[in-house]
């Protein structure tokens, strides 16, 4: 796997689009959290009473949940990167050449799946750094509680990357994949989830929509505890694991069986 990853690195090292999107993502992580952090500060100064009521979303240990939820909105960027890494191969027909030159089909898919995990790990690292920065910036001291949200964030990121990977593998075209990924993740996934939960008056919607199940590891800060139909954490984790297994299985199967 190490040599496969070295080859992937040779592919992206000089790929400008990758680095531009990557830089924008990192800036956005800190930028978005900074905006909300400042707005919160301004509200607190205007109304000390409200400050006393709310628990301080940017202080430890709440900061993990807050930054995780906010950063979750930016996972489109690494998702786009994931899509381009796959659709490039189809555009340049290098997915064929890699096989012709001596990769097995399984190796081709496996190394991309590992790339998805690496991208998810980088996203998680950014979330951790941002949480530390804003946690300390809000004047609180570090505590070890809520650290499980780092793991949850990795699962959310990995689910997004695998979903993007699947789209790219099946659609093969960059613009189409990016368009569908963005619209689906932003609108339709929430729509499906909300509709089902609303109709059944249960958290069922959280469980059936492929991205919502990961999103719901993080409840909306400030008002999360007041939301009706909160899904059960353990059910979410089981369903996410099932999706991850499914994505691996179906992508390997697809690429191993089809004409390239």
């Amino acid at each position, binding site marked *: 796997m190490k040599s496969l990853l070295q080859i992937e690195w040779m592919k992206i090292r000089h790929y400008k689009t990758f680095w531009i999107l990557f830089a924008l993502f990192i800036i956005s992580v800190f930028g978005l959290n900074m905006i909300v952090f400042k707005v919160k500060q301004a509200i607190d100064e205007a109304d000390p009473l409200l400050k006393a009521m709310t628990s301080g979303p940017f202080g430890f240990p709440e900061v993990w949940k807050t930054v995780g939820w906010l950063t979750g909105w930016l996972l489109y960027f690494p998702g786009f990167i994931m899509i381009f890494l796959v659709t490039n191969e189809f555009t340049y027909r290098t997915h064929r*050449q*890699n096989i012709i*030159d001596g990769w*097995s089909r399984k190796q081709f898919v496996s190394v991309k799946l590992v790339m998805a995990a690496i991208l998810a790990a980088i996203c998680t690292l950014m979330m951790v750094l941002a949480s530390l920065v804003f946690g300390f910036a809000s004047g609180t001291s570090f505590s070890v509680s809520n650290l499980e949200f780092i793991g949850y964030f990795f699962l959310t990121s990995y689910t997004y990357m695998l979903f993007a990977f699947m789209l790219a593998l099946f659609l093969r075209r960059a613009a189409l994949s990016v368009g569908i990924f963005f619209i689906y993740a932003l609108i339709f996934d929430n729509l499906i989830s909300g509709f089902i939960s609303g109709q059944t008056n249960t958290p069922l919607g959280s469980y059936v929509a492929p991205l919502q199940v990961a999103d719901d590891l993080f409840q909306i800060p400030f008002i999360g505890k007041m939301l009706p139909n909160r899904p059960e954490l353990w059910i979410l984790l089981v369903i996410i694991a099932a999706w991850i297994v499914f994505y691996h299985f179906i992508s390997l199967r697809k690429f191993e069986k089809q004409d390239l």
Partner: protein
Amino acid sequence: MQWSTYFHYMAHVLEVNNLVKHYGRIQALKGVSLTIPKGTVYGILGPNGSGKTTMLGLIMNILQPTSGSIQLFGETPTADHRKKIGTLLETPNFYHYLSAVQNLRIAAAIKGVSNPDIDGVLERVNLLQRKDSAFQTYSLGMKQRLAIASCLIGNPEVMVFDEPTNGLDPVGIAEIRDLIKKLAHEGKTIIMASHLLDEVEKVCTHVAILKKGELIASGHVDEILAHDDVVEVGAANGAALMQALRSMPLNTGVHEAEAGKCSIHFAPGTADLAAVNKYCFDQGIVLNHLQQKKKSLESKFIELTE
């Protein structure tokens, strides 16, 4: 392993058995069987859409066969076998934003070649001076040269070239054909698909002819592509002439040409104008036209594949 089995394995680079490929309702290959011996320059000749690239794609595992079997080096093909074959299939496939050198490094890494002689292979295809330019700035001919350079990485014993002179100018075509001949001289086994009869004839030792997914002939180039001698004759009564010629000994075919004329074929080097004239005269036919024709390669090719 018995010595005879071992010898068999070594003797054949590729064996294809009853290979069938359907794309939906289209039958691209209809049961092709072929054996390619070591050390040959094997041409796969056929018009566009005859199944040449489909066959190579199946061999290289980028297409899945409908049925049939393939053996590389006497074994069921794996990714490791492909590492030992330099292959250019259909189009040059490279990362557009990377340079020639960066692209070849990737190919070498996939093939597991640890110290690739990148400059050396670029030199062989005359691309050394542009080695650091991005692939997307290359002309069609340069892309084709790079693809051939990529095949040379690691100095493989077997190479597969699909339309190797595609997109090259006349000088480039001559250079690449020379290169292929040199490689053959070095003892490499070369499998080359082409729709150019003339190219196959100039470069290959063996040829297989594909037509609409079927193998219609295979063997030594000299046997398959032997040029018949063609004699064109004319007489006042065309029909009688034709009938008379059909019964002439040693002919390999009689075809009607333009009005009152027909052509009679003989095995290479055996046509005798005087004998034709005498034969016709003996049959009571006086010729008003008698000429030995050089048969064009195109008409030969059309004849083979029609």
